């Protein structure tokens, strides 16, 4: 399936995501807890321990999710005193958003092509 991700990269001009980056972003966004963590980080920067209090999973499990998001460059982590702070990375989000919208666009394009076929048939009647 690597070929398909390569084509994502091609479509976006090559400088948007490398194939490996696109793989990591797809993987990171494919989990509902990670999407939720990301949504909270977009709202405001917060500590890993504050995030962990929001979920009924262990701190270790939350840290693992944060690591997956960090590897995909969707968030970045930095230390403030004793706390690990998590912030969303807007540039990667913009690019990920493009990928998701492009998928939705697939069916919009298909519907438009169907409309064209139907219109041509109507004219030739």
């Amino acid at each position, binding site marked *: *399936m690597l*070929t*398909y*991700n390569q*084509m*994502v990269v*091609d*479509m*976006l001009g090559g400088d948007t995501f490398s194939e490996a980056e*696109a793989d990591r972003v*797809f*993987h990171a*966004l*494919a*989990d*509902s807890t990670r*999407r939720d963590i990301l*949504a909270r980080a*977009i*709202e405001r920067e917060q500590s890993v321990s504050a995030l962990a209090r929001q979920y009924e999973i262990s701190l270790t499990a939350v840290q693992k999710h944060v690591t997956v998001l960090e590897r995909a460059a969707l968030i970045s982590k930095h230390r403030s005193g004793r706390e690990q702070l998590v912030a969303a990375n*807007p540039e990667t*989000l*913009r690019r990920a*958003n*493009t*990928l*998701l*919208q*492009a*998928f*939705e*666009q*697939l*069916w*919009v*394009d*298909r*519907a*438009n*092509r*169907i*409309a*064209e*076929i*139907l*219109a041509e*048939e*109507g004219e030739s009647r």
Partner: protein
Amino acid sequence: MTVISSTTDADQLTMEIVAEFDAAPDRVWAVWEDPRKLERWWGPPTYPATFTRHEFEVGGQSRYYMTGPTGDRHFGWWRIDVLEAKRRIEFANGFAGDDGEPVPGLAPAGGIVELGSSGSGTRMLVRTEFVDVEQMERMLAMGMQEGMGLAIGQIDAVLREPVPA
């Protein structure tokens, strides 16, 4: 505006689109039933689809490939599970290998099509249901490929939009 609404539900792993056409349901049905019509819209101009098999009946199988700009071919398949003439299609849509046959162990995505009258035209709902997140990742990726018809201008417009929270 052909497309009235489109929604992606990441938690339910579904994507739904509603479109309206200025043509009767039997003509919209024909774009799904007739493989020559189907291949005119399934793939974008840059990745046209060719259906080598299209058994439009319950239990029927389809095989297709999409041809890329460099002549590269990407294979897919359908299996029709439910068919109610001019009203409803439920089909599985999966990846195929270079031999054109389904890749074993790779679950297909579910597709549901509903047609209904809307004034003198037709309302079409298409829902894609993913089995699991890994499949969604793969289909998202293939969706990108199929969505390559996306004009550069549209991509630019998306990039200028603010990131939704």
